[in-house]
Structure formats: structure tokens, C-alpha cells
């Protein structure tokens, strides 16, 4: 009996101790996922009706607002907005514009370098930064009728309904 007891106790102890680290690791992983929510850039200037749409929630854009992948930049009739992205590229939009930051990854150490934006409508001006410099096919602007691959650095895009 004694030998059985001694062989059981350590097992139970092991179970107890193993659960705590597992829980801790779990909590840490969740915490890190929150903290690592990749930052794509921030709002540098705003005028008129300018909004950020995130997970279908629309909020008025303010200077210093953080931008993330999948955010949508939206402006109304007299709106405009300028943003700076993490790779030091610079982007601005005029009125009646809708632009989706559909992909943004800037991790030079892991060679993750890409920025893809979809322009649904409106006007956009973009000046490339480090992503385009380090990965020549890393930056792309998609519109309903075209895709812009970029080797240059500074350009303007206008998307409009052909009826207008």
C-alpha cells in the first residue's frame, strides 16, 4: 500500500502544477495576441467628414488615431484625411473616398513586407516608404478596373463611376 501511495502522490502533484502553467501560457498567448494587433499607421490630419470604419463600426477620425489592417478610411462630401503608415509611407485621400487597408505587414526582420489597399471610389495620393523599397512587389493598389504595381514612389489615383 505504501509503495502505491508514494507512486500516486507525485502524479497528483504533477497534475496540479502542470495545470497552472498551462493556464498561464493560455492567458499570456491571449494577452499577446491583443497586444500584437498589428499597427498599420496613424491619422496625421483630418478635415471635414472623415471616418474610420472598423468591424462595421464607423467612428469620426481624429489626429493620432491608430490604424490597423482591414480598417476602411471613409470621407464625405467635404472630407479629407492624411495618414502616415508604419513603414513611413504617406497617404492622403480627398472627398467621397472609400479605401480599404486590406493588408499591411511591416516586419523587416521576418521579411513580411506588404501593403495592399483597395480603392472603392474617390481620390488617393501615395508616397512610398520602406515596404516598397525593401520589397519591390510589396505595394499594390487595387481598384474595380485596375491594379497598380509600383516601382515608382509618388502617384495619384482617382476612381469614379463611369456614369459621373
Amino acid at each position, binding site marked *: 500500500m505504501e509503495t502505491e501511495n508514494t507512486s500516486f502522490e507525485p502524479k497528483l502533484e504533477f497534475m496540479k502544477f502542470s495545470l497552472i502553467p498551462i493556464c498561464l501560457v493560455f492567458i499570456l498567448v491571449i494577452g499577446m495576441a491583443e497586444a500584437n494587433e498589428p499597427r498599420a499607421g496613424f491619422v496625421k490630419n483630418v478635415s471635414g467628414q472623415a471616418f474610420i470604419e472598423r468591424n462595421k463600426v464607423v467612428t469620426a477620425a481624429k489626429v493620432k488615431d491608430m490604424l490597423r489592417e482591414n480598417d476602411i478610411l471613409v470621407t464625405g462630401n467635404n472630407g479629407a484625411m492624411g495618414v502616415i503608415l508604419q513603414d513611413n509611407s504617406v497617404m492622403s485621400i480627398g472627398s467621397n473616398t472609400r479605401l480599404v487597408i486590406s493588408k499591411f505587414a511591416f516586419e523587416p526582420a521576418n521579411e513580411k513586407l506588404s501593403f495592399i489597399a483597395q480603392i472603392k471610389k474617390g481620390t488617393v495620393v501615395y508616397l512610398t516608404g520602406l515596404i516598397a523599397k525593401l520589397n519591390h512587389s510589396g505595394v499594390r493598389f487595387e481598384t474595380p478596373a485596375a491594379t497598380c504595381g509600383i516601382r515608382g514612389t509618388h502617384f495619384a489615383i*482617382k*476612381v469614379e463611376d463611369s456614369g459621373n
Partner: protein
Amino acid sequence: MKNKPLLRIRNIILPLVFFLLLISGCASTTQVVLLPDPDGKVGTLEVSNVKGTQTLNQAWQATVSASMDRIPSEPKLLEEEKVRQVFREALEAEPIPPVSFIIYFRTDRSALSTESLTLLTKVMDAILSRKSTDIIISGHTDAVGAIDYNHRLSLRRAKAVADILIARGIDRQNIQVTYHGKGNPLVPTPDGRPEPRNRRVEITVR
């Protein structure tokens, strides 16, 4: 009975009209214009859709893609004034690009030289012209010395720069100070080798 043929035409026309509306509703045109860089240089821009690619390589040159089933139009030179008019709002909202500065230090020192103090005047100008609320100051050392010591030295260097900017009126909350010790050299060297270019503080103003 006489009405029947008319109805038949309607039956064809209505879906047709609807179909045409649907097509025109979906169609949108994309105009892309190559702008000169802030320093005056001009890059190259490729604009493509499934049918083909156009390359722009002159400032104010533009191409139009009307739909995915037609190749983008031949590049055409536009008048600068017209482009500025069409993109006026976006161009006015365009932030000044971020700029970086490097300040160098003597071995094992965190005090700034007279030239460095002069450079900080340019840093101040960059901050004020951008109304910057995002200033990143990172301290670095060369590969001489212990890891812990270099971490502290690189932090002292970064703080020395931050303190001067704060003393000149910059809001502390707009400054992020980071330190890298010898972990992030500008010029990689074997451990233990002195390298003046790595004894530095980098300042990025965004």
C-alpha cells in the same frame, strides 16, 4: 390579342435595360497619374489589369483603365495644373514625409557635441513643421563592452537627446524613447570592435 407583340417586346426590352444599367453601374474608371517625388526625381509606375500593363515614367503622365476587360489607355501627359485641380483635396491633406536624423557620440559618452546641438535645431524645425506628435528616439552603442552596460549607455544617450528636445519645448508625451545597446548596429562588426558609426542616437520625426 393585339397587345401581345408589344408585350413581347417589353419582355425583351425590360431585362435588357436592366442588364445595361447593371453593367454601367458596375463599371468605374480608374485614372492613375505619376507625380514627381518631393525631391524632384521621377520613378516608374506600372498600371495593369487582366488585359495588360501600361508603364508611366514621366511626371504628370496618366493612364485610364475603364474596365478590367480593356487594356489601360496609352500613357498621356497631362497639364500639372489640371492634375493639381483634380487631386487638390488629397494633395492638400498629404502629410510631410517622416524624416530621420543621426547623432553620433564619443566612446562611452552620452554628452552631445556642439555640432550635435546644432543638428538638434534642425530636428526641432522638422518637429514643428510637421506638428509632430510621434517622435521616436532610439539609442545605440558599438560592440565594445558588456551587454548590460551597453543597454544602459544606449538608454542614457537616447534620454540625453530627449531631455534637450523637452527642454526646448517638445511635449514629453510625443516622444518614445527606445534603447538597443549593441543589438542594432548601423554597421555590423565583430563583438568588441569600436565603430564610431554605431555609437549613435537615431531620431525619427513623423
